[in-house]
């Protein structure tokens, strides 16, 4: 029972990491690639909405795929693996925040 719960947490944790990495990439990439930004605007009415919608789609796709794959996973060390995934989510979220802030500072200073 506990193992099942941990696998669900792992799936959502990895899905969150994927979504945050996508958002960080899309934020920076859309500043350099006008066709990508225009596509987001055309498809979703606003680039910000587009990034948000795609992040949510990625979140559910990764969560479902990981959960299905985890059904066959061996239960050994699930606790440790899920704990590591949670710590990775914490680190990724803080680093992604710093990267986005740093990028816009450098972009404003016309260094990027």
């Amino acid at each position, binding site marked *: 029972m*506990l193992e099942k*719960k941990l696998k*669900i*947490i792992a799936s*959502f*944790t990895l*899905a*969150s990491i994927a*979504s*945050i990495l996508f*958002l*960080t990439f899309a*934020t920076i990439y859309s500043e350099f690639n006008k066709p990508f930004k225009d596509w987001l605007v055309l498809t979703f*009415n*606003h680039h*910000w*909405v587009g*990034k*948000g919608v795609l*992040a949510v789609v990625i*979140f559910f796709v990764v969560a479902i795929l990981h959960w299905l794959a985890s059904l066959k996973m061996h239960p050994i060390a699930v*606790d440790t693996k*899920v*704990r590591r995934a*949670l*710590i990775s*989510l*914490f680190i990724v*979220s*803080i680093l*992604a*925040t710093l990267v*986005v*802030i740093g990028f*816009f*500072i450098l*972009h*404003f200073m016309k260094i990027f």
Partner: protein
Amino acid sequence: MSTSLSIFLTIHVIIGVLGVFLFGGVSLGLLKKKISVKMLKYFSLGGLISYLIAWVLGGHYYIVHYGSKVKPIIKAGDMTWAHSIVMEAKEHIFLFLPFLAFVSVVSIWTLGSSLDEMPKFKKAVMLVSLSAFIIGILIALAGIVISGAATI
């Protein structure tokens, strides 16, 4: 600004700050040796709902009003960085919050009191909640800077 938009903006600010406080409470609650499961469940779920409502209302204001009315005022002033750095970073980092909050809610609601038996795991869940709290504070501070830049 229309009355409905100003109401949306006010609710966005209040409920966003409420979400920050709730995740602050979750982070502190998870530091305890014996957690209060009921409090953590309600605080984390309340925090997630707060962030989601703040996301929708803030997003609506940003798309309908900010770009056409507020952004030009900031860009024409002395604090152009308030939009180019602070708002640009805020609008994108804000998108991280619901995912962090969701993982925190799922962990607390599925494991409940079992978290006390897994102290290292509890600490890892605390770190995710702490992230939702810290980023929430940054977003709130960014909102204050942008409001200031638009009124100066």
